[in-house]
Every structure is written in structure tokens, then in C-alpha cells.
């Protein structure tokens, strides 16, 4: 066989191989995108309904005999009165046909136990309510909420369902009377953690994350920029500086959980700082973010043309003046970009916070840097452990909030990089 023929006969095979190779590449890209879609799709479908919550309308009679028998409107009396009794009475009146202990207990269980506190707050705010009858919308229990959102299959046999036929009957009758409806879930954004899904919110976690990030930023941004300035402009070339650079590069790749161990051993056990607090969390995350900020800031300083510095030096500025008056202002947007990206990573970080005890069950939003707190990703972790369907939904919703923050931060970083950064 002559060589030309040999080549021609092999050509078809080679082109098939080429097409196959190209196809593999395409498949890889499509798979990657598919995973992304699957991830976001599963979280959105799991979570979007948590932004609404089922409420039940009840005509509540603010019975003076229950709330304030003495009639003195004493704050302490109003505060500690048995408001749950009002809810119970109202539910029994709404379903007068229901008798028997068990059935009546099922009735009251349809209303969230937190409703009593809501009534209490209303009365404390406006004591004139006492003695009147008001139509109040109260949060429904999470099982009722799940039923209204269609997560409980009515076709299942009764003993495999979380709700029996009687309760579903009550809900349906209320639905016909427009006494039950889904509304925007303000509790989710305005409350701290709770054992009851319908009372649980992310405000405490958001506050905790916010305080933690402030500490992180205060620690890592100034120190990171200072370190970058030194290493780029003033550092002599010697072994000590090499050591610093090796350390920075390695710290950037150390697993985050190790930083948690550092925080536990040094900040908590050695310095005796309080556990579970934003200040310790912020310090740990700050040390973790520092290499990212140093590396980004160095790149940003490098990208400023040397002619700018030389011009400043040429008219008699010192190196320090050339750096701080001329190079640094131009490099600032780039440094901020790196800082925002570092902060976004710190916001999503969970493992080191587990190590320093920011996993406690904390109801009240933290008021300061040294109060026990939890952070948004940790809250997600805590809720994901809860068996209730209502918490699964809220976990996904909290993830959506977290992702919204991350997207906003990254968009800000991209904006800074594309629009504000000066190019030469």
C-alpha cells in the first residue's frame, strides 16, 4: 500500500477521533453547567415557599379575667398572664362541634405556640385591647403550614401522614371560610432561632455574621494592605522575606478548620477570650482571609505602572510619599476587589466557627462583639440537622439569603474591577 493511501484511509479515523475529543469537552462543560443548575434548582425549589407562612384568623376575646383580673394594668401582671388560654378559648369557639380532650388538643395544636407571645406583645403595646374582641391572624403550626404548602400527601393512608383526616377537615373548612391563608413570612427575617420552625428566623444569625465580618475586615484589611505595601515596595531581598512569602502562600492553602483549631487553642484557651462570640470568630476569619487580601493587594500594586512612582521620585518625593500619595490611590480599587472577595469567602465559611463554639442555640440577636452569637452559615448547618420538614424549607431559604449576599458582594467586586480600576 502506498503512503498516500495509508494517510487518506487514516484520515477519516483521525477526524472521528477529533470529533469525539471535542464532544468529550462539550460534555464536560455541559455536565458542569448541569451540576450548577441542579444545585441551584434543588435549593430554590426546596426553599422559595419558606418566604410565605400560613396564618389562621381567630376572633380573640382579650378577656380581662384572664389577662388582668385586678384591673390595675400592672406591667408585670400583663407580662406574665396566660395568653395561651385566650388562643385556646378562641379555637374552641371557632369549632364548637368539637368535644373530647384529644380532639380539642388537636385543635389547639394547629396554632403556633409562639402566638401567645405575639398576643402578649400586642397587649403590652396597647392595653386598651383588653376587654375587646379582635380578629387576629396567628401563625399556624409548622405541620399545618406544610399541609397548606402541599408537602403532605393527602392520598397517603391516615396513619402514615403527620396529620389525620380530622385536622385536614378543620383546615379545609377554614380555607372555605377564608380564615386561613399564606402570607409573606416576616418572622423569618425578624426573629432569632427557635425550636419551632414557624417561629424561627435568621435575624440573629445575620447580626452575628455582620458583627463577625466587621472584626474580620478591621483585622485583615489594614494589615493585609500594609503587608502588601511592605513586600512590594520596601522589603529587602533576603531569606527572612522569602520565609514570609512562603508562609503567606502556604497559609492561603491551609484548610479552614485548622484556623478554627488555632482560634480554639490560642484565643480561647490561652488568651481566655469568651467562647461563641463574634470577636473570636472575626479574628479567626481575619487570619484566614489575610493571605487572600495580601496576594490580591500585591497584584494590584504591581499593576500600577512604574512610571508613576518614578515621576513622583523624580520630583523629590520620598519612597514612602510616592507609595502612599501616588501608587496606593491608584491600586485601591483593585485592593478593594480582593478584599470584597475575601470577605465573601469569610461570610460563607462555617468550619472554623464550629471549632470556636459559634454553634450554640441562641434565640436573641447579639447586641455586641462579645455576646454569644451564631453566623448565617452555621445557622444553616444547625437547621439542616433538624428533622422537621419546616426546617428543611427554612434551611434552603436561609441558603438563598446567604447566596443573595454573596452574589451582591461579588457583583460589587466585579463592578470595582471593571469600572473603577484605572487601566494604563
Amino acid at each position: 500500500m502506498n503512503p498516500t493511501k495509508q494517510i487518506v484511509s487514516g484520515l477519516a479515523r483521525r477526524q472521528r477521533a477529533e470529533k469525539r475529543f471535542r464532544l468529550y469537552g462539550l460534555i464536560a462543560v455541559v455536565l458542569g453547567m448541569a451540576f450548577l443548575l441542579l444545585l441551584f434548582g434543588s435549593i430554590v425549589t426546596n426553599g422559595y415557599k419558606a418566604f410565605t407562612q400560613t396564618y389562621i384568623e381567630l376572633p380573640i376575646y382579650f378577656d380581662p379575667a384572664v389577662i388582668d383580673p385586678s384591673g390595675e394594668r400592672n406591667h408585670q401582671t400583663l407580662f406574665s398572664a396566660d395568653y395561651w388560654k385566650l388562643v385556646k378559648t378562641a379555637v374552641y369557639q371557632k369549632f364548637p362541634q368539637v368535644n373530647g380532650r384529644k380532639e380539642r388538643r388537636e385543635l389547639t395544636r394547629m396554632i403556633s405556640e409562639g402566638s401567645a407571645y405575639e398576643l402578649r406583645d400586642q397587649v403590652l403595646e396597647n392595653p386598651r385591647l383588653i376587654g375587646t374582641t379582635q380578629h387576629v391572624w396567628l401563625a399556624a403550626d409548622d405541620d399545618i403550614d406544610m399541609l397548606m404548602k402541599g408537602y403532605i400527601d393527602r392520598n397517603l393512608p391516615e396513619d402514615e401522614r403527620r396529620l389525620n383526616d380530622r385536622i385536614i377537615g378543620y383546615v379545609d373548612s377554614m380555607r372555605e371560610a377564608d380564615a386561613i391563608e399564606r402570607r409573606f413570612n416576616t418572622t423569618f427575617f425578624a426573629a432569632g432561632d427557635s425550636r419551632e420552625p414557624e417561629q424561627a428566623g435568621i435575624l440573629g444569625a445575620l447580626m452575628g455574621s455582620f458583627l463577625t465580618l466587621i472584626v474580620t475586615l478591621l483585622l485583615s484589611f489594614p494589615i493585609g494592605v500594609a503587608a502588601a505595601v511592605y513586600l512590594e515596595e520596601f522589603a529587602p531581598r533576603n531569606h527572612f522575606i522569602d520565609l514570609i512569602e512562603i508562609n503567606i502562600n502556604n497559609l492561603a492553602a491551609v484548610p479552614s478548620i485548622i484556623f478554627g483549631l488555632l482560634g480554639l487553642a490560642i484565643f480561647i484557651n490561652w488568651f481566655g477570650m469568651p467562647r461563641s462570640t463574634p470577636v473570636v470568630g472575626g479574628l479567626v476569619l481575619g487570619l484566614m482571609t489575610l493571605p487572600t487580601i495580601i496576594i490580591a493587594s500585591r497584584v494590584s500594586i504591581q499593576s500600577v505602572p512604574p512610571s508613576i512612582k518614578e515621576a513622583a521620585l523624580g520630583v523629590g518625593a520620598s519612597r514612602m510619599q510616592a507609595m502612599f500619595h501616588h501608587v496606593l490611590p491608584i491600586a485601591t480599587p483593585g485592593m478593594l476587589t480582593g478584599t470584597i472577595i475575601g470577605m465573601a469567602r469569610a461570610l460563607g465559611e462555617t468550619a472554623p466557627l464550629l471549632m470556636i463554639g459559634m454553634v450554640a442555640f441562641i434565640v436573641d440577636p447579639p447586641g455586641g462583639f462579645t455576646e454569644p452569637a451564631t453566623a448565617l452559615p452555621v445557622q444553616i448547618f444547625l437547621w439542616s440537622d433538624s428533622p422537621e420538614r419546616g426546617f428543611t424549607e427554612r434551611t434552603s431559604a436561609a441558603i438563598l439569603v446567604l447566596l443573595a449576599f454573596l452574589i451582591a458582594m461579588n457583583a460589587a467586586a466585579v463592578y470595582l474591577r471593571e469600572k473603577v480600576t484605572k487601566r494604563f
Partner: protein
Amino acid sequence: MSPLVLIFLLLALSSAAYFFSQRRMLRQTRNANVARLNSLPEHFGTLGAIWAGAPALLVYFVWLIFEGDILMAQVLAMLPDPESMAATRELLIGDIRNAINNPMSYQMASEEVRMAADRYHELSQTATLALTATCLSVFAICSALVLKFLTPRVRARVRVEKIIRGFLLLCSTLAIFTTVGIVLSVLFEASRFFQAVSVTEFLFGLEWSPQMAIREDQVGSSGAFGAVPLFAGTLLISFIAMLVAAPIGLMSAIYLSEYAPAKVRTAVKPMLEILAGVPTVVYGFFAAITVGPALRGFGQSVGLDVASESALAAGFVMGVMIIPFVSSISDDVITAVPQAMRDGSLGMGATNSETMRRVILPAALPGIIGGLLLAISRAIGETMIVVMAAGLSANLTANPLEAVTTVTVQIVTLLVGDQEFDSPKTLAAFALGLALFFITLVLNFIALYVVRKYREQYE
């Protein structure tokens, strides 16, 4: 005066010193006996502020760091019989601290602890007064020195710049301090662990059940601390992750850099990188809620018994997380191969894929391997995915359908909740942390070295 007010006062005084020094220098030059200032007025201002304020601030911070411990020691020395009050000194200090900070604990505390807390309060009030007095007098002395020594002839700019330079150097050495802090803290606690458990048992033992006996005669009273099942589980999950991430990441990098039109490339690349920005806790939730049950259901439908916390689910999701990491490093490495090599191969009549497989990939291989090593180190150190989606019980198996546990999972389970720093159970977490730190450090070193060598080759 509370310490917080004091620091603001000191800062305000320092800024007053700034303006005062600046004015004073300008006035002195106007008084004709000095021709001109050595430096700009703001340099004199800064130098004046530093000379006057820095020593007082230093005193302030050093004082606050040591105040708590010294006061506590005094309180303890005052107590008649500290040994009888609590099991250990640390517990007693903890009780007293709680009583000091928390009115509720104060109510519940014993008589002696309450007394100690009261005494602490008194002492700390005195201490704060003393602190205020010391800081203010240090500031006054330093200001007097500024008045004496700060003259227009002082080379203020040079001095200020030296101080700033020292500060910058200090900031850059923080990286070293952090590393040293990590190594020391982990080593110290781990060495305490190795006093109770031998190194060989830890490294080669096949059984891991880190509970300690509450009573001496309890069944299974001695915990087993053999870490081999944890290392095996970590490796299994990382291996599955790389099985997912390496081909998909590499092939998508090749496709995007060599085949895809520019428009597709600019649209798809950032979207793949979103995968890298998603917090790991989100992946963990995805693995536990969606992937795990789906795999289990699929296994049941084909008659396989898949554990609900299988290594496969955790490894798969971890692989998805690492895809953008692999793909962006591969992309860098592939584009760094000189165009001349590409042109040469294509000029000889090779197809794109032949060029890629026979010329570019071999040339880029060191860089790609370095990137994969970094990816493996990330997989080994990844925590949240495995905490949420992998098992808790140590299980020495190579079957990806069973539940295994990893080093990071065990660190988290050992340290979350109540900790006692004298039990091997808690200290074991630090021994595992030491192993984890060491392994990832070695991997990173090799990877960074390989990548740097590779870059130098083509520069």
C-alpha cells in the same frame, strides 16, 4: 473611667499633640532664629503625636492583656481554701468568671465564689483607676519630652518613615506568627494527647472509637485511637471527588480554551466559577438532602444497598465543588504553553485533538499535576460537606456505597459540644489536626514547587 473611654481619650490627646506640634514648629520657624523646617509640618505633627501617644497606648494594651490574670491570681490567693471549692483550678476560675460576667450565675454561685467575684469587682475598679492614672501620667511625661526634643532641626520625615516602615514589617510578619501559632497550638495539645496514646497506635491502629470511660469498670472503657480508618475514609472520599473533578475540570478547560467560540467562553467560564464561590455548607446541604437520598433510591431500584450517608454522595458533591478549581488551574497552565509549539504541531498536519494530546498536554503535565495536587489537598481539608453528608462511625472499607468517616468530621465531632482539655478525647482532635496540617502542607509545598518550576520553564 472605663477602659473604653480611656482609649478614646488617649487617641484624642494624641491627635491634639499632632496639631500642637505642627503649629509649634511653624511658629518657631517664624521666630527667625531657625531658617526653615527640616521636614513638612505634617511630619512634625505625626512625630509629635507618636512620641506623645505611643508609650501610653503601649502601657494601656500591655496592662489590659495581663490585668485579668493578675487580678484572678490575687483573688485566688485571698480565698481561704481554694482546693476544696472545685475539682481543678481552671474550673474554679471558670466559676468565678461566670459569676463576674453573668448576674444569673452570680445568684446561683456558692458563698465563696460570690465573695471572690465581689473582691474581683473591687480590685478591678482600683485597677482601672490605676490604669487611668498611669496612662495619663505617661502621656504627660512624653508630652513634656516632645516639648523639649521636638525642634525644627529634627529629621522628622526620616523618623516617621522609619516608624511606619517598622509597622509595615510587623504587619507582614503576622503571616509567620500565624503559622507559628498554628504549629505550636496544634503541636502542644497533640503532644499532650501522645502522652496518653502512643504515636504508633495513633498512626497504625485499625480501630477508632474515641469515647473515654466515665467509670473505671465500664465495658469498653478504654477508647481506641487508631486513625487508619479515618485516613482511609478521607482518601476514599477525596479519590471519588477527584474522579469527578479531574476529567470534567480538565476537559472543560480544554474545550473552553481550544474549541469554544469567544462568546461561549466568556459566558460559561464565570458561570463555572460560581461553583467555586458557593459556600461549602450549601454543598453539604445539597449532598445530604438531594444527592444522598437520590443515590439511595437509585441503589434500591437496581437492588444495591446504598448507605444514606455513603462515601459516594459526599465524594461526588465534593468533586462538583472542585471542578472550577481544577478547570481554572488547567486553563492557566494550558494557555501558558507557547503558541509556537501549537503552531508547529498544527503545521505538521496534526488535528486539534492530536496537538492537544500529544504536544500540549505532555508539555503542560507538570503544571496540571501540581494543580491536581492542590485540588487533592483542598479535598482532604474540606469539612462541611463531609460533616453533613458522610458518616460518623469509623469504618475501614473501600466500598464507596458504605458510610465512612474522615479526619475533619472527627475533629468537628470531638470538639463541638462540651470540651474537657484533660481528656484524650478532646486532645485527639488536635492530633488529627496536626496530621491534617502536615499532609496538606506537604501537598501544597510539592504542588507550588512543581507549578513554579513549570512556569519558569516557559518564561
